[in-house]
Each structure stands twice: as C-alpha cells, then as structure tokens.
C-alpha cells in the first residue's frame, strides 16, 4: 500500500452545526486504491463524500489531499487541486448540451488543449461522441451517468469520488458503469465509491469501509467483509444467501 492520497482526521460535518451527520471520521485512501463506502441508509455516506467535496459544512476535523490541507478549500479549488466528485443526482447540466457540459469541465485548461481533452473524452465515451448536441437532460440514465463521469475526468484528476453511480439504472447499465469504474481505476485514478449495490461494489473494490451512524463501523478487504455473516447482517442488510454469490 502506498501513501495516503486522500485522508480525513476527526471529520465532523452536517448541514446544522448542532446536528452533525458525520461524527468524527478518521479515514484514508491510498494512491491507486478503489475503496467502496458501504452502510445502511442514513449512515452518513453521502454526507461524508459531499463534505470532502466541499458541499456540506465541516464543523471539526481536517482533510488532506496529497498531504495538503484542503479542509476549508472551496469546491472549485478542490477540483483544480485534483479532486473530482460525481453526485448521485443532478450530476449534469440538463439544460446544456453534452458538448457544453464538457466545455465547462475543460475550461480550466489552456485554450489550445481543450479540444484535445474533449476529443480524448469522446474517444473514451463513444456514446457521448455520437450525441454532442443533445441536451444532457434528454440523454438516457446511463448516458447521463457517463457524461457526469466524463465531466469529472476531464482534468485528469488523481482522485475521483462517486456517490452511488448505479442508482436508478437498469441492471445492464449498472454492469457497464462498474466496468467503467474498474477501467478508470486501472488507468491509475484513485476511486472512492459510495454504493448501495453491495455485491457489485465489493466485486471491484480493493478495500471496503462500512459506515454506521456517522462513524466507521468496520473496514477490511472485500472478501473478508463478504464472508462475515455478522457484518452483512448488521450493516449491509445482506442475508445469508448473498454469501454464496459473493464468494
């Protein structure tokens, strides 16, 4: 395992200062890992990653990216520093075209490099290349998810965080999304993934962390968690019949 590329220390976050949802999380992701965050509904998974991205107020603790403190850095500066975030919903600009969504994403690059960057994204996501003038709101669920991921990858970030990218997608598209995440991770990008789809997430993860009530309840290798019936029952809502499938 290499050095931590993203870490939090005693992170407390939530929309109201006196009602924290994230209650002191010490957490780190090493370069090249694909870490999946699991846990029951209301465990604070989404709030935790939104706090890392800068969308939820932080009331205590610190976070660092590549060793640099980014606790109170604004969201757009975090993007420039190499932290990309794909929210679960409303993750594309629906009233703008596919191309305009990507043009926004590459606006930080020098003008001469933008066309090349967009071309590279279109090569990586041919479904989007076929629909540059389509309004993002008119794309299918899977295409919208690809556009959201393409937008996040536009600046070649070392770290990408995705909040339930499989939510609301058909099983066929879900498997495509997980294949895409595997490929992104294989290309050297560190991935932090929040998922409800436990089986599929554990199948591609290099490490899994379970949150409960705003704190880390358990962490370990995917195969360890998958084979631990107590963990599955208490935290993941998985019944015994899942174990065979996960093994």
């Amino acid at each position, binding site marked *: 395992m290499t050095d931590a590329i993203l870490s939090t220390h005693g992170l407390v976050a939530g929309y109201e200062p006196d009602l924290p949802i994230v209650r002191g999380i010490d957490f780190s992701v090493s370069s090249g890992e694909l870490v999946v965050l699991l846990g029951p509904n209301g465990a604070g998974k989404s709030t935790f990653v939104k706090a890392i*991205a800068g*969308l939820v107020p932080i009331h205590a603790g610190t976070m660092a990216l590549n060793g640099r403190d980014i606790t109170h850095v*604004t969201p*757009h500066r975090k*993007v420039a520093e190499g932290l990309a975030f794909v929210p679960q919903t409303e*993750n594309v600009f629906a009233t703008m075209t596919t191309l*305009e969504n990507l*043009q*926004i994403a590459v606006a930080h690059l020098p003008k001469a490099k933008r066309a090349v960057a967009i071309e590279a994204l279109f090569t990586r996501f041919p479904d989007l290349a076929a629909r540059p003038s389509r309004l993002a709101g008119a794309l299918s669920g899977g295409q919208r998810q690809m556009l959201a991921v393409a937008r996040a990858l536009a600046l070649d970030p070392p770290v990408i965080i995705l909040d339930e990218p499989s939510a609301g997608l058909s099983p066929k598209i879900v498997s495509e999304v997980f294949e895409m995440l595997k490929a992104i991770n294989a290309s050297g990008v560190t991935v932090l993934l929040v998922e409800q789809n436990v089986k599929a997430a554990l199948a591609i993860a290099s490490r899994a962390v379970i949150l409960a009530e705003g704190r880390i309840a358990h962490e370990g290798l995917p195969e360890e968690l998958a084979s631990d019936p107590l963990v599955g029952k208490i935290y993941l809502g998985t019944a015994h019949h899942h174990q065979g499938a996960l093994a």
Partner: protein
Amino acid sequence: MNPQFIMDGLITGAIIGLGAVGVTLTYSILRFSNFAHGELLSWGAYLALAVAGALGYLSAGLTKPIAPFSFGWALPISAVIAIGLTGLLALAVDALLFSSFRRRGSAIIIMVMASFGASLALRSLLEFLFSSRPAYFTKALQIAMKLGGGLRATPDQLLMLGVALVAVIAVHLLMTRTDIGRAMRAVSENPALASIAGIDVRRVIRTVWFLGAALACVAGIMSGLLIQIRPYLGHDLLLPLFAAAILGGIGSVPGAMLAGLIIGLCEALAVQAVGAEWRAAVSFVILIAVLLVRPRGLFGKAS
C-alpha cells in the same frame, strides 16, 4: 390609428428590454427579485450626466453635437465610464448588503426586503446629490425624420434602437459562446454542481452584478437621452422590467428583449386606444396574464 405608436413602442420597449435582460440574469443566478435594479438605471443615467458635465467643463468641444445627433462626444465617452461606475456601484451594494445574507443562507424574502431598502437608499441619495428636478443630456431639439409607412423617428432614437440591438446580441453571444457565459448558465441551473465542476461561483455572481448593472446603465442613458433624467426614472420602469423578464422567461436574454418590445408596443397601443392614463396598467395586466397562463414565459424552461 396612427402607426407612429409602433416606433414609440419600439423605443420604450428597447429601454424596458435592456433593463429586463439585467433583471432576468440577476434573478436566474442570484435567485431573488432585486427591486433595487431600477435604481441602477437611474444611477447609470446620473453618473453619465455627471461625467459628461465634467468632460464638457474640461473641453467645451466635447459637447458640440455630432451631426445628425443631438449630443457631442462627451456623452459616448461618459457612457463608457458610467457603465464601469454603475457596475462598481452594483458590486459595492452586493458586497455591503447581499453577500452577507448569502453567506448566512438567508431566506429569499430577506434578500427581497433588503433590495427594497437598497432601492430606497439609492434613490434618496440620488435626490440628495442631484435634486429631484428633471435633467437633460442635451437641450438641442431634433426634427423627426420620415421613415415611411407613417413612421417618424429622430436620429437619436434610431441610434438608441441600434445600440439596444447590438447590446442584446452581444450578451446573447456572451452567454452561449464564452466560458463565462456557460459558467453563468451553469450556476443558474445548479450552483452546487457548478462549484464541483470547477466554476468559481462567487466570480460568476460578481460578473452577473456587473453585467446587469452595465445594461441598466445603458437603458438609463437611453431613457435619459430620449425622455429626461429623474431620480424616479428607474423606479417607474420597475414593473415593466419585471413583467418583461417574466414574459420572456427567466434566464432568457433574447426572451427578455423580445418581451420588452412587446410590452413597449402594448403600452404605446394602449395610449392610443384607451388613453395615456392606462399606460402603467398594461405591464400589470401582462404580468398577471403570464403568471396565470404561462408562468415560465415565452422562452423559459419548464421546471
């Protein structure tokens, strides 16, 4: 019916349209009705008047009319300076008032009430500085030219129509073809997503204030040149401005301009058809009708 109402309506409509573009931009991005927007028209006109006066004092040659218009070089030069100053005024009001409410996450109604307060303060300050007597950029009289079809217009009026058209096309191109325009549309649609897409939302908000104020200044100067300059110049246009922004569809630049022209034409038609005392009611009727029949306006996007 005298067809001249068409020209009168287009001129009034161009002033309303330019002001409405500023209203629609600030509303769609800042998400509150800024009732102080009308004062930016008045301040724009008075700032141009003050700068033109100073330029005329420094060089009398600058006030000599540029044929065929009624004004000298002092006015276009002062207009450029006034646009910058009005933009800075809007940024100052935002920094002193609205930004602190934004930081606290205040409710929209608090922002609206604050804009009422800002409106009162800005208008009173204008009256204090310049008095409430009407003022003029020029006292030169112009003869209206025959345009055919029973229409007449002065060279100043035709120039101002051209300026309004160029300004709206420029803003439309800015919104659709540039980074800052795309960023403004992105913030308008989803500020949180815009921030994690790498957009500096605070910079966009500053740009919107400046741009809206710049357009208000141009509209104020147009109104001052073609009618007169009064501290209530912008305040009296507030209802037509909001009616045009809503009729055009919040966030739509061409929509606001087109709606401004529609309202201007309806007002001019009402003056001929039912009398000048009904002019102000036209905007009100249009506003209510749009809200009842098509709340998203002509070019607004369905929510």
